[in-house]
């Protein structure tokens, strides 16, 4: 709070903390615990502190209107040993606490050769939560440094630049511990060897793993995200934040048009799309996902989706086999499926605000009829080709 107020130009903004959580309490509880309680930071009575803050005269510093230039620090570190540099990066909060590839000039130069864009070109900006925290901007070179640290091969760099250009943080400051996902479509999937077969969302592929990790390192370092207590407040955290949920669609085996084509891109375009929300889990976690001799997957989806929160809508990550079953049930386009999923029985309000709140993705192998679901909403798509 104090840090954020300072960054917004009021380092001496007056505030009183109250005992959390506030929601879920009655008026009487809040009166006793909060209004008649004390500020857990200062120990002063809450209301006395508020009245003092409203009536104490301003200092000269409080009236200042100058501009202060900020610096992120030196451009380089070292020379030092690999072990000491690994420790330095950890201590400065510039890692995800896993070992990094040290971003030497040589490795960064090799990464930069994988794009036609100049090293000092501004790629975008990220805030730990849009509209709440300040935005930090970053250049192609700064993205390259983080891509090297993540262990990415240079051929992945246009994908990472496209993710960076989206300007979306992978680590939200929210106390909700959100998950983030990348959906990758087009020829780039095969060019860089992304996995969309067995274990597509798991740790079984270098491109999937390092592209996803680069997003989080970029968010931490170039976007000032993930500073626990300052720009990160997730109550329980989210293990998918390390490499995020990377979904290269299995376009070859999917019975439907790919996600990016449905968003208006051409099949030959390489595109990355950003999703955010709660994450995904196996549909077998739901009481509605039952094995039977005659499956009705569309009905299963509808039952599961109607039990989900509205905030992020619903997403299904289907194996090609499940997708083909659904197509054979009469849904030869995703539009038909999402329209049906959205519709509710007559005289009842639809569960979601629109069919657009329901997203269907296809990846993985066809060796069994499993699929994942979750509450994740589409944010935006960015052309990867523009960053080649």
């Amino acid at each position: 709070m104090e840090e954020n107020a300072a960054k917004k130009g009021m380092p001496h903004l007056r505030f009183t903390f109250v005992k959390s959580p506030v929601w879920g309490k009655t008026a009487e509880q809040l009166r006793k615990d909060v209004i008649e309680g004390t500020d857990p930071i200062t120990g002063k009575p809450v209301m006395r502190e508020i009245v003092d803050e409203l009536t104490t005269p301003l200092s000269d510093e409080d009236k200042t209107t100058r501009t202060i230039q900020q610096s992120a620090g030196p451009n380089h570190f070292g020379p030092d040993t690999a072990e000491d540099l690994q420790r330095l990066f950890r201590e400065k909060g510039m890692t995800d606490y896993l070992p990094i590839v040290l971003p030497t000039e040589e490795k960064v130069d090799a990464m930069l050769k994988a794009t036609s864009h100049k090293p000092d070109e501004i790629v975008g900006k990220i805030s730990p939560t849009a509209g709440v925290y300040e935005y930090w901007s970053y250049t192609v070179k700064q993205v390259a440094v983080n891509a090297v640290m993540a262990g990415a091969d240079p051929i992945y760099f246009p994908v990472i630049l496209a993710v960076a250009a989206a300007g979306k943080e992978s680590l939200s400051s929210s106390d909700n511990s959100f998950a983030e996902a990348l959906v990758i479509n087009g020829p780039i999937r095969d060019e860089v060897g992304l996995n969309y077969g067995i274990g597509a969302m798991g740790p079984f592929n270098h491109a999937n793993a390092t592209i996803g990790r680069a997003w989080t390192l970029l968010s931490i370092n170039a976007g000032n995200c993930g500073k626990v207590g300052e720009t990160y407040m997730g109550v329980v955290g989210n293990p998918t934040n390390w490499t995020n949920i990377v979904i290269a669609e299995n376009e070859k085996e999917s019975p439907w048009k790919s996600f990016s084509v449905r968003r208006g891109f051409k099949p030959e375009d390489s595109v990355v799309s950003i999703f955010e929300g709660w994450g995904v889990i196996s549909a077998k976690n739901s009481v509605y996902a039952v094995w039977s001799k005659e499956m009705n997957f569309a009905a299963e989806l509808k039952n599961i989706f109607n039990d989900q929160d509205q905030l992020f809508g619903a997403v299904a990550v289907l194996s090609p086999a499940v997708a083909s079953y659904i197509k054979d049930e009469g849904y030869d386009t995703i539009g038909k499926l999402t329209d049906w999923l959205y519709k509710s029985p007559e005289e009842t309000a639809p569960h979601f605000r629109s069919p657009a709140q329901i997203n269907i993705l296809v990846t993985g192998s066809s060796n069994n009829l499993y699929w994942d679901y979750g509450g994740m909403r589409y944010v935006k798509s960015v052309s990867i080709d523009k960053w080649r």
Partner: protein
Amino acid sequence: MKLRFVIFLIAPLCAGLWPSNQVMAKERKKSEPATAIEPKFTVLSPLGTPPAIKMLAMAPRPNTLDDRTVYIVDDGFVGGDVLLKEMGAWFNRNMPNVNIVYRRKAGGFPDEDPALWAEIKAKGDAVIMGVGH
């Protein structure tokens, strides 16, 4: 019986390997310098560029809240309305000369509400903003 057999079999194998391991280690030591020098690296900073901070002058403070209008603004966080209405009730009980106006800010918590800001500027003497995230 089985255990004895295994131990018996392994012992001669180890005995056979031990001397050759020692010889190899000695040969390695001969070829290495007395003190190995760890290589040192210079690496680039991964940090982005923070924006300049434009300092804002804070609103002047009244000397007293008596006969003044204090806006209590709710940003929409769950339960914030209950808490802030209790805060208004505290003023009514303990500082009845203060005119309290409760308002729910338009939009989500990060959104601006220019109409409300203008109203407060015109009619208010102070603001208490409930910020939940």
